[in-house]
């Protein structure tokens, strides 16, 4: 091993890959066969966390950062003056295996800049995965990037070796894509997505009949969108996320606050703040859609094209729809319980199980873990004390904000501080 050379390449190519937010290592059920190396943990394991608090579960690198495209938002775009490097296939395999054996990682996340043409690049990615699976008997997690424009045959082969495939749509609107990545066509992104989705559906149906059908991307596929680069609204983002969830059966859509990497008049300037709060609100909305039974048009509509920054989307929905409340926690069904601000899905489950034994009061709910500072205005329980005043939405919001503190509060507080 030429240690110094590998070290230099790793630094360049890990640095270039870091803007991909997905680090999921969950959802796959690959087991260790024939006393080989590794297996996939169904719930996923985060082996470490970066200093910005994101999980590290996979060795996330680019095969190369040479690229023929010139997308404005991307750090490895053709016109950017950065050091370029490329790994050999064997080098990636060795790094993965040695990191894995030391319990540093759950597996490999391999992406790449596009050199020559899409298929040539995709072929290389598949070759790495194939080598790991067949020569090293490696059963850990492999996440491959589907290169936009790759052929169906290669996408099929990729899914046989990988657990997870993803294409980053990056820009949520087609008009934005034209502006920021003029070389790429929307269809280039959706073509591999569609192929992967069809293959997953095929695999799931065939599996029911023939147990030994070879696995096809058991952890599904995902995509990612940049937030705050092309002036899109939250509504644009969430509606297009919903579209990808529905049409391509995405496991996840990731939202990535744009980190300025280029001096380009089409984009926010270098040094402008990363929209982390907005990103957080989008993830909250995503969760409401996937786990809480909300429909996207309940949260975002023409009248409310953007999410509130000062309160979470569920509270904001509740304040706009006060006529649903107060809800009786001892009687309401699951769907309605999940809509009370301050009650999460874990609390919902606990409440439903506990209320079979006795009627619940404030004390019980507090111990179960309900955030009463928000929930108290929207519910009644087995107690004589509940909010009887007929408060309007503004008043409730004010009272909640007064009695709580949030980590992002200083970013949107319009209260003047005294000594500044």
């Amino acid at each position, binding site marked *: 091993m030429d240690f110094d050379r590998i070290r230099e390449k790793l630094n360049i190519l890990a640095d270039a890959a870091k803007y991909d937010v997905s680090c999921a290592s969950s959802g796959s059920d690959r087991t260790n066969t024939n006393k080989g190396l590794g297996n996939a943990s169904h719930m996923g394991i*985060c082996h470490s966390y970066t*200093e*910005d608090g994101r999980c590290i579960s996979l060795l996330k690198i680019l095969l190369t950062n040479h690229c023929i495209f010139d997308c404005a938002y991307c750090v490895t775009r053709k016109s950017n003056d950065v050091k370029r490097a490329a790994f050999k296939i064997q080098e990636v395999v060795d790094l993965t295996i040695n990191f894995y054996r030391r319990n540093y990682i759950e597996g490999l996340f391999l992406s790449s800049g596009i050199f020559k043409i899409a298929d040539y690049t995709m072929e290389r990615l598949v070759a790495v995965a194939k080598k790991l699976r067949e020569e090293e008997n490696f059963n850990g997690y492999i996440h491959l990037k589907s290169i936009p424009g790759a052929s169906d045959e290669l996408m099929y082969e990729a899914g046989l070796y990988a657990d997870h495939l993803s294409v980053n749509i990056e820009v949520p609107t087609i008009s934005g894509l034209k502006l920021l990545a003029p070389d790429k066509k929307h269809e280039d992104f959706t073509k591999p997505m569609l192929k992967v989705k069809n293959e997953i559906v095929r695999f799931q149906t065939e599996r029911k009949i023939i147990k030994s059908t070879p696995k096809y991307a058991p952890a599904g596929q995902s995509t990612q969108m940049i937030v705050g680069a092309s002036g899109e609204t939250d509504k644009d983002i969430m509606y297009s996320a919903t579209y990808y969830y529905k049409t391509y059966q995405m496991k996840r859509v990731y939202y990535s606050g744009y980190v300025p990497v280029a001096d380009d008049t089409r984009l926010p300037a270098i040094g402008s703040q990363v929209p982390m709060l907005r990103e957080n609100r989008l993830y909250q909305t995503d969760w409401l859609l996937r786990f809480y039974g909300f429909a996207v048009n309940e949260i975002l509509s023409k009248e409310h094209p953007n999410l509130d920054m000062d309160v979470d989307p569920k509270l904001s929905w509740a304040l706009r729809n006060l006529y649903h409340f107060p809800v009786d926690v001892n009687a309401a069904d699951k769907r309605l319980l999940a809509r009370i601000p301050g009650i999460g899905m874990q609390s919902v489950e606990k409440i439903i199980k506990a209320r079979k034994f006795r009627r619940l009061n404030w004390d019980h709910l507090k111990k179960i873990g309900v955030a009463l500072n928000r929930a108290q205005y929207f519910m009644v329980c087995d107690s004589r004390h509940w909010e009887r005043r007929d408060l309007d939405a503004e008043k409730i919001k004010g009272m909640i904000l007064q009695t709580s503190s949030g980590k992002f509060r200083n970013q949107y507080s319009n209260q003047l501080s005294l000594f500044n």
Partner: protein
Amino acid sequence: MNASTTLIYDGSFNGFLTAVFVAFDEKINVADIQRNGQCQNGLFSDTETIFTHVEKAKRVWNGIKGKSHNAISNVYFAFLSETEGVEMMLYTYIQKLMRTQTGKYLDYSDGTVLHISQLARKVGREKHRMEAFVRFQLTKDNIYFANIEPDFDVLPLISKHFRDRYADQQWLIYDVKRKYGIYYNLDHVEMVSLNLREVHFNKIHKSDAFLSEEYDYQTLWNDYFKSTGIKSRINPKLHTQHVPKRYWKYLSEKKAS
């Protein structure tokens, strides 16, 4: 009135289950269940020493498992928390569980039930953390070696995970705090106790027990850890929340350099 008795057991899980068996079998009015060597006598209670009996323990295990799979794992996990007084709480929990018809005893408004399930969750979290934070170092005898210092006694819980995953390499995970380890010899996992001359945490000084290649990979991993972070999003509070400082000592990526 039935005089109450304090049961003394040997500290093992089987010992505890035997104590539960004896208490049920002899209809003892239990004042407390304490581990050998930590007992404090109550003023008005007798003591009885319990001798671990695997058959009896097994009957209790199967009895709880027959009621609910969830309950048996809750009991085992909560026991491994080594919390003071957990034995008596578990005894109450088992009593309550056995009284139910279906075993679906999930009354989270009951203090004991909620507490046991929270303890079990805590231990479960520590187990998960150890599956993540173990850092193997390759020794010259070709054994992947790791030191850990978990909050709870989770070695018995993580052994299956590592056995399944690293089936083709010899590995040893040693709990520095509890002074025992688990060793996989390419066939099965066994418990070992070592006479460690030094604890191998992530110090800069290179030990001659390890290959030089080992330190190369640690350097690469450290580099990777650094270059994968995004500077403009730095958030030390969130970082330490996910990776609490007490674990840093054994994480090679947190090595001061």
